[in-house]
């Protein structure tokens, strides 16, 4: 039987080819099997089937399939997982793209993770989607980023490198959900929620541009984008007696710059961005964030062998603050005119870098809240590693970014076998 060559045929052929030494350089198959669990240790439980202490429990198989030849390449990274909390099994296509390269131009088409900017766990010019729920429940760092279904073109010249991203499909951030997390909800009595995501239309296509070059030893870049806020605004159907809340994503344009390089015996990072809240430039709509300027200064240094330290100072200045306060409904928590955040990272590698002790702190002196993340990671062999860590939240009130997570202090474990 000759039969048509279906996609399955090609996948099988690729898998077979992987085992054949002569083709091994053209097709590669890697991945991992992982168990990842987290439990709330505050003794407080939410109602509902997913609200128990153990709010993360999953087993995951990741397959990374890559092929390349003569300037073009294909990459697929797919997870099959079992979510033991929700009792579902599912697939997650993390990345799937085709690369093509010709002269000074690179093209990447498909689902891809894009990370911009120089912050450490702080994102200013990076307008691409993130999964904060994953981050706050102790999933490995790579799960903080979500792929964008996009076309990306890079053009390299002697003067400047140009990176252009076009994203026709809106992707919102994943925020901690009220099913699994204690989170602040400004409309606690309104259970009816409608989410309106921007549809895939030409007019809604997000575009982002990055120009970069090395300047006096510093890696410098300027950025611009137009698209949408990736965290939703909330609009009640009736300001006094709401029966339904609509979650929507206002338009956003950003303009920013960054620089990073050696200074003062370490690495210095600077970044700033203007967030132009296109749908509420007057600042009078309480459901839409006002325009802001965000900036970051970071410094990292090795204090001694295999100990890396990093500190960052971040600020977020809200424009039209008076109008914002006037428009805010009574009883709603007000954001500060200038929100400030400090982070500290300490990473010590021990025992020939098989043991990693790390500590990351978010602390906001203006919100008076924090998240402390201690972690111990050990590589048992080249293939197997395990980690145990915690997210310890706190704050003066339960309405701020980290303060709202106060009752979600958790301990997490990860074990991963890579191949």
């Amino acid at each position, binding site marked *: 039987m000759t039969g048509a060559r279906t996609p399955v045929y090609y996948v099988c052929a690729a898998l077979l080819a992987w085992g054949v030494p002569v083709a091994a350089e053209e097709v590669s198959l890697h991945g991992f099997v992982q168990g990842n669990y987290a439990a709330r240790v505050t003794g407080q439980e939410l109602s509902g089937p997913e609200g128990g202490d153990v709010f993360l429990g999953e087993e995951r198989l990741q397959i990374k399939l890559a092929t390349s030849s003569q300037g073009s390449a294909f990459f697929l990274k797919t997870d099959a997982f079992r979510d033991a909390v929700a009792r579902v099994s599912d697939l997650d296509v993390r990345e799937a793209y085709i690369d093509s390269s010709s002269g000074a131009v690179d093209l990447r088409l498909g689902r891809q993770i894009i990370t911009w900017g120089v912050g450490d766990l702080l994102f200013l010019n990076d307008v691409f989607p993130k999964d904060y729920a994953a981050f706050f429940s102790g999933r490995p760092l790579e799960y903080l980023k979500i792929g964008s279904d996009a076309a990306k073109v890079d053009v390299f010249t002697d003067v400047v*490198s140009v990176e252009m991203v076009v994203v026709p499909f809106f992707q919102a951030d994943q925020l901690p959900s009220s099913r699994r997390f204690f989170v602040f909800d400004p409309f606690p009595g309104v259970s009816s929620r409608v989410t309106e995501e921007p549809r895939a239309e030409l007019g809604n296509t997000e575009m982002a541009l990055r120009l970069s070059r090395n300047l006096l030893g510093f890696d410098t870049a300027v950025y611009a984008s137009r698209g949408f806020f990736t965290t939703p605004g909330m609009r009640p159907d009736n300001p006094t007696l709401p029966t339904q809340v609509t979650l929507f994503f206002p338009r956003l344009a950003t303009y920013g710059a960054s620089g990073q390089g050696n200074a003062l*015996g370490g690495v210095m990072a600077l970044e700033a961005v203007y967030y132009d809240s296109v749908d509420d430039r007057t600042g009078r709509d309480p459901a839409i964030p006002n325009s802001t300027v965000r900036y970051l200064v970071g410094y990292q240094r090795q204090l001694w062998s295999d100990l890396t330290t990093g500190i960052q100072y971040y600020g977020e200045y809200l424009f039209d603050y008076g109008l914002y306060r006037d428009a805010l409904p009574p009883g709603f928590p007000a954001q500060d005119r200038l929100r400030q955040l400090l982070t500290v990272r300490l990473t010590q590698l021990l025992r020939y870098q098989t043991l990693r002790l790390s500590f990351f702190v978010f602390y906001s002196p203006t919100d008076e809240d924090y998240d402390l993340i201690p972690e111990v990671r050990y590589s048992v062999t080249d293939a197997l590693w395990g980690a145990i860590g915690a997210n310890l939240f706190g704050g003066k009130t339960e309405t701020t970014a980290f303060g709202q997570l106060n009752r979600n202090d958790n301990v997490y474990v990860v074990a991963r076998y890579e191949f």
Partner: protein
Amino acid sequence: MKTWGGRYGPALVVLLVTAMQAVPAAATDATETVRKSQSVFFEAAKDFQARVKMTLITRDGQQRLRDLTMLRKNGEAGEQKYFMYFHSPADVAGTTFMVYKFPNRDDDRWLFIPAINMVNRIAARDSRSSFVGSDFTYEDVSGRDLSADSHTLVKEDQIGGRKVYVVESTPRNPAEYARKMAWIDQATFLPLKEEYYDVQDALYKVFTADEIKEVQGFPTVVRRIMVNVKTGHKTEVVFERIQYEVGLGDDLFSERYLRRPPERWIK
């Protein structure tokens, strides 16, 4: 009665002057020897490509493998560029690492992490840090500033039938070691053996060049071992598919190729 100094004074002065001239001359020779040694060991040819297999072995015999492709290109006035692509272990496969090395100032270092598609600058002040968890430090991999140590020729000797200079190097500022003894081949100027001593003057690390081959006319250490005699941990490094003068372009050492490692060079 005339004093000793009075009688022999002038002769003593002559002796001292001779000695003072002789010492710098010997030091210069030793420094020149180390300079030549560094030149053949770390800087041979205009550029260089190799597949590097590092085996990290614990005292109990447990092994870990670091498999990478290393590309190096020499620039002007002692500057060098390095590009490394990691094939394994699996948790770092696809990671690329780039270094711009400058004499007498901090390196520029970049790391690309494929899982989040991010290029990051990393702090490089401490060149004593272990290179990828091995017994080799960054300095052991890419060289140490010649002027960071003072060098003295201790004696001439033989190792395995080869004539060597034995040079002692003492750091001018606190370093990983308090002193280092190097056995440098008089014919090729490659280091055949090195011993590292700590502040208590106890031997703690021994380097040996276990296999040397001539590749395209360049004598090359293709197998080397660094043993930590205190912990019993050791690292064996084997260079395979070595090529010199491959014509690496400057543009290769850029963010573009950190993100998309050039297939042609990293095999």
